[in-house]
């Protein structure tokens, strides 16, 4: 049936604020996420300048006070994880890709989908508004440990602390609402003929991540209500003086917080799988192996959380158990990367920009994984805990996830999203500039962390045992590299905006890929498919022997 016959062209407000179209909602999430990324990046710029040039004027900000410094690092972490990684990787890609890739016209519940974005938008407004209240935005770290977070007298941002909790809770609700659609649509909305193992890996990964999010976030929602009551209504859930337990929050937070890493990692791995298969022109090696390893990660990630609490006073026997589970979880992840490398082997590799990002993801994430072993083993973690080694480690996991894999996905699907090609030369300049500077930002921090630099320190000079003037040049190098990194992002922004109007027009299938989204015009019309497709095979049939073309779209009968 023809979708256009049913829908008149909607007006501006219907189209951009109250749209129920999955592609429009994906764009809303994408652009909100990108704006939040700019804010999060700006915060990083300000506090890195403070660390390199303590108590001097920061251009575009002013002098950073100790309290502001706490707010800056707290909000940087909060924004980058909850308002950039989550909306872009899960919501933007999930909303855009799932209906297109499974051959459907929209999500199963478009109005719940719209509500999901509206709640998310509200959460972002609450979070940003907290910068303007008395005392400023929350400064008790993105992990919000009580008693620091529970008492305004300790964190000095009493209003900001409660707004932070409300914003995070709203954000969770938004993703629980959106998750309904991801799971139900993938289960029920698939095109005729698309069996379980014909679903593209990235869709699988987004669905697995969504279910994982739902299972892990519930206890933290309860915990957030309890913390809010401690802040506002005088309860003592986390106050040991009144029968409460501050460790309880750490358990609830990390029972969510660790799986959360995988909630954003799995979609990133999915994006990389799609890009690697298309640009290696080779059948994805071990489709089922990838799924099984993803399930293994899924299960294990629920039993590793206490590796964040080795120094928090948990039972040492528990520490042994959590060390072992943490080291175990690296096995399926390593296996997955090996599977991707095996896909490359013997392929006719095209080094277009998306492929460069996908390859960089594997290389950089490997460093993140290997350095994680030192923190997962309780013995070494006691030394490294709360140092810059930890900061460098998780940026080597989160930057590959939320920046590198996102760029792989954005450069790959840009033609489908906007109907134009990005400029390849600018894309490659942006790629190399970002990757090199990224490493220059964080390798020095491994060194300063190993030397003992504690994180969340406003000014090292003010602590005799933390001063270490010999390390100051490394702190400066890291900051300068960040400045260059940010400058290179301007190239991407320019390329993104310029190509919207002036890029070469994209045909339906510019990369010669197999999945269903490439069978419709770029950008896809309302309702996606003029004729609803039927699926005849899996998504990765590249270079099939005996076929004239080296690709074989899922919807072509033979």
């Amino acid at each position, binding site marked *: 049936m023809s979708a256009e016959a049913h829908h008149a062209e909607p007006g501006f407000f219907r189209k951009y604020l109250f749209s129920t179209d999955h592609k429009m909602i994906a764009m809303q999430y994408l652009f909100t996420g990108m704006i939040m990324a700019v804010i999060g990046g700006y915060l990083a710029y300000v506090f890195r300048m403070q660390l390199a040039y303590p108590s001097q004027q920061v251009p575009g900000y002013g002098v950073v006070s100790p309290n502001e410094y706490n707010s800056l690092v707290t909000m940087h972490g909060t924004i980058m994880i909850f308002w950039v990684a989550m909306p872009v990787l899960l919501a933007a890609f999930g909303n855009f890709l799932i209906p297109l890739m499974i051959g459907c016209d929209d999500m199963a519940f478009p109005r719940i989908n719209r509500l999901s974005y509206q709640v998310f938008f509200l959460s972002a407004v609450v979070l940003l508004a907290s910068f303007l209240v008395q005392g400023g935005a929350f400064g008790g770290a993105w992990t919000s440990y009580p008693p620091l977070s529970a008492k305004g007298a300790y964190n000095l941002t009493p209003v900001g602390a409660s707004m932070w909790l409300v914003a995070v809770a709203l954000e969770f609700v938004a993703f629980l609402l959106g998750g309904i659609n991801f799971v139900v649509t993938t289960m*029920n909305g698939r095109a005729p003929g698309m069996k379980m193992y014909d679903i593209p890996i990235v869709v699988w990964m987004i669905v697995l991540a969504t279910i994982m999010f739902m299972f892990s976030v519930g206890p933290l929602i309860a915990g957030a209500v*309890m913390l809010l009551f401690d802040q506002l209504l005088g309860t003592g859930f986390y106050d040991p003086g009144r029968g409460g337990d501050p460790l309880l929050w750490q358990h609830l937070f990390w029972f969510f917080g660790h799986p959360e890493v995988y909630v954003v990692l799995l979609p990133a791995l999915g994006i990389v799988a799609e890009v690697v298969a298309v640009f290696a022109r080779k059948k994805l090696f071990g489709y089922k192996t990838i799924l099984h390893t993803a399930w293994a990660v899924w299960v294990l990630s629920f039993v590793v959380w206490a590796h964040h609490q080795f120094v928090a006073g948990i039972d040492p026997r528990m520490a042994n158990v959590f060390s072992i589970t943490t080291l175990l979880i690296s096995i399926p992840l390593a296996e997955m990367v090996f599977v991707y490398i095996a896909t490359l082997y013997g392929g006719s590799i095209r080094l277009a920009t998306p492929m460069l990002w996908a390859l960089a993801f594997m290389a950089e994430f490997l460093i993140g994984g290997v350095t994680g072993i030192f923190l997962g083993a309780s013995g070494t973690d006691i030394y490294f805990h709360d140092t810059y080694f930890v900061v460098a480690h998780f940026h080597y996991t989160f930057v590959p996830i939320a920046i590198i894999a996102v760029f792989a996905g954005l450069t790959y699907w840009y033609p489908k999203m906007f109907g134009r090609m990005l400029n390849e030369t600018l894309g490659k300049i942006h790629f190399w500039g970002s990757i090199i500077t990224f490493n220059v930002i964080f390798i020095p921090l491994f060194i300063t962390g190993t030397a003992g630099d504690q994180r969340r320190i406003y000014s090292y000079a003010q602590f005799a045992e933390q001063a270490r003037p010999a390390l100051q040049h490394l702190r400066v190098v890291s900051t300068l590299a960040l400045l260059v990194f940010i400058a290179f992002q301007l190239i991407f922004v320019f390329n993104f905006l310029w190509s919207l109007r002036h890029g070469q027009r994209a045909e339906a299938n510019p990369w010669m890929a197999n999945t269903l989204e490439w069978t419709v015009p770029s950008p896809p019309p309302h309702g996606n498919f003029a004729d609803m497709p039927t699926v005849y095979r899996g998504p990765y049939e590249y270079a099939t022997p005996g076929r004239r073309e080296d690709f074989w779209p899922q919807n072509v009968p033979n």
Partner: protein
Amino acid sequence: MSSKPIATSRSAAGLPTARLVTWWVIASEIFIFGGLLASYVMHRLGHPEWAAQAAHTHTWAGALNTFVLLTSSLFAVLAHKAADSGDGARAARFLRLTALGGTTFLCIKAFEWTHEIEAGFVLSSGGFWSFYYTAAGLHGLHVLAGVIIMLFFAADAARNEELQRVECIGIYWHFVDIIWIFLFPLLYIAR
């Protein structure tokens, strides 16, 4: 958008989309209540002295409320049966009876809380009372939400529209019931 997308009507997994959504909501709720109750049980085990506080709760009121909720669940089952046989008017009648049960539950709850607050036991009166009011309050909100949604669905069902929703709200109501079956012994009886 008046017309539903194709996606809403497809059923590749062989399960109705409405039922899938209901299960998704319930699964996420189980983890919210699960986190809260696990926290409570851990604290309770570490604080035997909370039993003296728990002795101030009105066990008979809790027992009566358990009976009220279980009865209302029976009406939800009868509403589902009526909806399955296509009798919207009958389904609506039973849904309204279920909602009446929920309202009765909330009234008894209000009566209990009034007495406890008058006796000086409030949210901030110590660990037990914090958990007591938070857990029972969260559950009460779910009862209230269920009653409101049920009345809307009953209005639809009376016109023989969207009858598949009768089953969904029924599943949700059983879930609210089961949560109470956990709360009642944990908050009122455990010594």
